[in-house]
């Protein structure tokens, strides 16, 4: 779903302005939650590029999130590097790893790829805890990092500053993703997803594109991981279990599998809906979460973006018909 119309760009701009004004009225805790939701949104965007646009089914993105988070934590805690540098660094590390994982993944399709990536997600906490890596990762104890203050002495609380920083990253990365999808590369990726044989016949270098997409997707999720580490101020193997990978996947589908704005909706869903479920019943919170999921899928089989598209289509058809 390329973001083409002026209407959509204006809506996006309006949303950004509204988001920028929010800290004036919202409490620090709400900002913290929204920042985290945005972080998950960026992670889901990475997954969207890979699974939604390029059709490679990944259930393992928690591994890249973890890799980005630990890269940031190690850089800040062990080397004392300023947190801003950790974002591109985490991204690049994940880009490389994602690409390297993408190469053998070329041989796997559908459910087998899902399983291979799922295996990666399951193995990640174990690897993080393992003794050879302990001097770097802190093993089971994890690494505690300090929350950065606003720069240049701006009158912002750390929560507000991180909110704005994350918002900036969201705008930049979502914009870049939209650009990517709209152009030749995006069309090539979608072609590979929908009909790989035809794509190859048209001269698209499938192997290169697929591996690169894996890398870029990991880049996005890695940057999100680094931001997440800074926001939470703590990384530990238990933060990145495969249930997180599943949560990202759920967020992707609920938002709309190939939709870029849907990724943000997914991030909000992943953060807030478990809280809502717990509100209803502590003992059956999981069951209520499951029921909400099923209802959501019933009402919006193609995710929130699908529903929006449906509604918009219905409305525009009405105006042209009359």
């Amino acid at each position, binding site marked *: 779903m390329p973001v083409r119309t002026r209407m959509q760009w204006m809506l996006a701009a309006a949303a950004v302005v509204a988001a920028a004004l929010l800290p004036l009225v919202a409490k620090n805790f709400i900002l913290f939650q929204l920042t985290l939701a945005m972080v998950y949104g960026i992670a889901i965007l990475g997954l969207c590029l890979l*699974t939604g646009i390029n059709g490679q*089914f990944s259930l393992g993105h928690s591994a890249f999130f973890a890799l980005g988070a630990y890269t940031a934590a190690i850089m800040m805690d062990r080397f004392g590097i300023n947190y801003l540098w950790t974002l591109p660094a985490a991204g690049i590390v994940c880009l490389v790893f994602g690409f390297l994982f993408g190469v*053998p993944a070329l*041989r*796997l*399709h559908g*459910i*087998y790829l*899902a*399983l*291979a990536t*799922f*295996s*990666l997600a*399951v*193995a990640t906490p*174990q*690897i993080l*805890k*393992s*003794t*050879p890596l302990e001097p770097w990762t802190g093993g089971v104890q994890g690494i505690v990092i300090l929350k950065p203050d606003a720069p240049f002495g701006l009158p912002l609380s750390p929560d507000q500053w991180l909110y704005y920083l994350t918002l900036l990253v969201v705008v930049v990365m979502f914009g870049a993703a939209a650009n990517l999808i709209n152009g030749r590369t995006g069309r090539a990726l979608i072609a590979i997803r929908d009909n790989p*044989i035809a794509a190859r016949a048209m001269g698209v270098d499938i192997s290169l594109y697929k591996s690169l997409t894996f890398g870029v997707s990991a880049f996005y999720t890695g940057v999100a991981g680094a931001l997440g580490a800074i926001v939470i101020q703590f990384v530990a193997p238990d933060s990145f279990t495969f249930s997180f990978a*599943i949560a990202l*996947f*759920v967020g*992707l*589908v*609920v938002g709309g*599998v190939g939709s870029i704005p849907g990724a943000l909706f997914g991030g909000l869903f992943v953060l807030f809906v478990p809280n809502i479920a717990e509100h209803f019943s502590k*003992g*059956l*919170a*999981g*069951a*209520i*979460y*499951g*029921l909400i*999921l*099923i209802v959501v*899928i*019933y009402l919006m*089989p*193609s*995710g929130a973006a699908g529903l929006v598209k449906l509604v918009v289509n219905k409305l525009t058809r009405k105006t042209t018909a009359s």
Partner: protein
Amino acid sequence: MDLFLHQVFAGLSTGGIYALMALAIVMIYQAIDHLNFAQGEMAMFSTFVSWQMLQWGAPYWAAFLLTIVVSFIGGVVIERVVFKPLKAAPVLSHVVVFIALFAILNSAAGFLWDYTIKSYPTPFGTTPLFGGLISSHDAGMTVVTLVILLLLYVFFRYTRIGLAMRAAAANPESARLVGIRVGWMIALGWGMAAAIGAVAGMMIAPVVFLEPNMMLSILLYGFAGAVVGGLTSPLGAVIGGFSVGVIENLAGTYIPYVGRELKLTIALALIVAVLTIKPSGLFGRVVVTRV
């Protein structure tokens, strides 16, 4: 050498658990061409249901058979009520519904029966056989696995319904044209998978103790075994399950320094390696798409 033998047999014991789970997974895959993430939770829930029957005083085999029937019906009901309305939804949405089912069953089991472990009886006793290499329960479990395997083989190969189910999964449109009720075939597949899962749960619970979270890691290993063996081959799934158990144990024992900490990782790495060399699994059929 003695340790090696012991570890191999211990691996076969746990592998037997994985093999049984893998069978249920392959069963559902045959029916719906997708992996059901809630398979383990369905098995766990069925086992709790049978445990409850035992608590109410039912004799073991009565509870066993009744649970299989109840699980079968449950599987069919879940398919008809939850998945049939979603036929038109994209495939990935189905996966989310599996996840939802997982959450519901896990939470409901915890709510109804709480999280402390419960012991579950075995009909085979726990006497050590062959000088302590395996227990009678492990042997009994393996026999049950092979019996189910045989029944499945006969079902798919020699019965009309089995053939109809394979047709419905392979090519639903053509199957419909020949008069096969595809919807009911899928429901039947679900029911059978649920029943096999129930048997798996009731065989596994005596070893690992019954509690709502007992199936999660077993599901993972079951997936691994099914994938290694080939998702289209029940025999492959069983062999895959046993292999995963043995490999994991040997890796944990003999690979120095990291072997013990990274058992699961090593097993999974092997799975991925097998997949890259032979993407459809060791025994799976290679599907060739014609352009």
